[in-house]
């Protein structure tokens, strides 16, 4: 079947099998390998991307379900070559080690900050509770999100 999905602002029209998982559409069809996968049961959250502005687990969705919708992945976090404060925060606070869960964590963190610009540690922990990290013990992920909250991006100045 043919689907058209807007990913990071670009519309892609592709022929896919109905059963193609969204994560495979992103990784294989489009070559956006920044989104990872880590389980088969929607538990690890490594595959989190945005679907119409909300984080979802892309291993549990069909590419077909994204037809006509907007997806944003880790590759779409940077704006005009500038890192998102969340990306910067993960670097500043050592919020990642092996880097495997990081894209999903950052997508959820960005979404949290968009709706709650000054989250408490508990709110951050709740927001990422559907995503596993085996390296950091979560401490520095929480700090990274706090860092991003405290260093919001400069508003774009339009001339």
């Amino acid at each position, binding site marked *: *079947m043919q689907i058209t999905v807007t990913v990071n602002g670009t519309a892609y029209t592709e022929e896919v*099998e*109905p*059963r193609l*998982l969204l*994560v*495979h559409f992103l990784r294989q069809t489009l070559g956006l390998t920044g989104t990872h*996968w880590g*389980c*088969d*049961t*929607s*538990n690890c*959250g490594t595959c*989190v991307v945005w*679907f119409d502005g*909300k*984080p*979802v*687990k892309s*291993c*549990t*969705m*069909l590419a*077909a*379900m994204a*037809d006509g919708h907007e997806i944003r992945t880790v590759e779409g976090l940077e704006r005009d070559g500038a890192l998102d404060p969340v990306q910067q925060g993960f670097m500043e606070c050592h919020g990642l080690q092996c880097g495997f869960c990081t894209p999903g964590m950052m997508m*959820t963190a960005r979404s949290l900050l968009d709706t709650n610009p000054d989250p408490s540690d508990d709110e951050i922990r*709740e*927001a990422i*509770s*559907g*995503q596993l990290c085996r390296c950091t013990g979560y401490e520095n992920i929480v700090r990274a999100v706090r860092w991003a909250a405290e260093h919001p991006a400069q508003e774009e100045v339009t001339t």
Partner: protein
Amino acid sequence: MQVPAPFAYERATSVEHAIELLSRHGPEARVVAGGHSLIPMMKLRLAQPDALIDINNLSDLSYIRVEGDQLLIGALTRHADLLDSAVAGEHFPIFRDAEQVIADPVVRNFGTVGGSLCQADPAEDLSAAFAAVGASVVARGPNGSRTIDVRQLHAGPYETVLEPNELLVEIRVPIRPGGGSAYEKVERRVGDYPVAAAGAVVWLDGDTVAEAGIGLTAVGAEHFAAPEAETALRGRPATDDSFAEAGRIAAQHCHPQPDQRGPAEYKRQLAVELTTRALRRATARARGQEA
């Protein structure tokens, strides 16, 4: 990673279209909404439907509103929307309690209320919450709509009484003023299915329980409900002793199965304890002592 077996995919453009597609594809077709229970089962090849009917575009099935003395919840309402719903929370804090502990925040963004009910997992949370509050569901088929008491919806594990060409479209919860409700769950870890959970709704007449609803999940309670305990509680003083007695009666009628979440005797103990706690908290809310 694991991937589903091939299937035909249809996208419904209206409820009528969905029903037509279900009729056309027959009993081996499945409705997919959030897909967060179905798609993992398809990946593990525990489910291999011939066709999926995608209803995600039926945005008119996504709503939470009060009409008359009923709270209406569209079947395509996402868990996150029920959790965040002020109107649902105002009338039924039990839904807020339950939704806070259903799966995880990301799954709740796409998983749907109707999908959870139709999946009919014996450890599903909302089934117990809706059983407690005495909800009913509206199913639409080729011959029109029918209303089903939620306590009659489940025919067994992973089985509902819906016909293959029927679509669950709405959940209706009767609103009666003066009540309080709560949900208590023990899970091994955030995002896990419950080891056991209990929901309760209580209406008081002074210090007496005028009416109570009790729902249980993961402990083998028939239809996710505890009618014997509800009957026993009616007219009793709203005290810890009564609640504990109701918990014991509820647990007596459960048939918990041992699994890696715990032995049967432990789950039975949780049925007692969590029913008691849910009743206690529901009562405190009915009295306005707790949010």
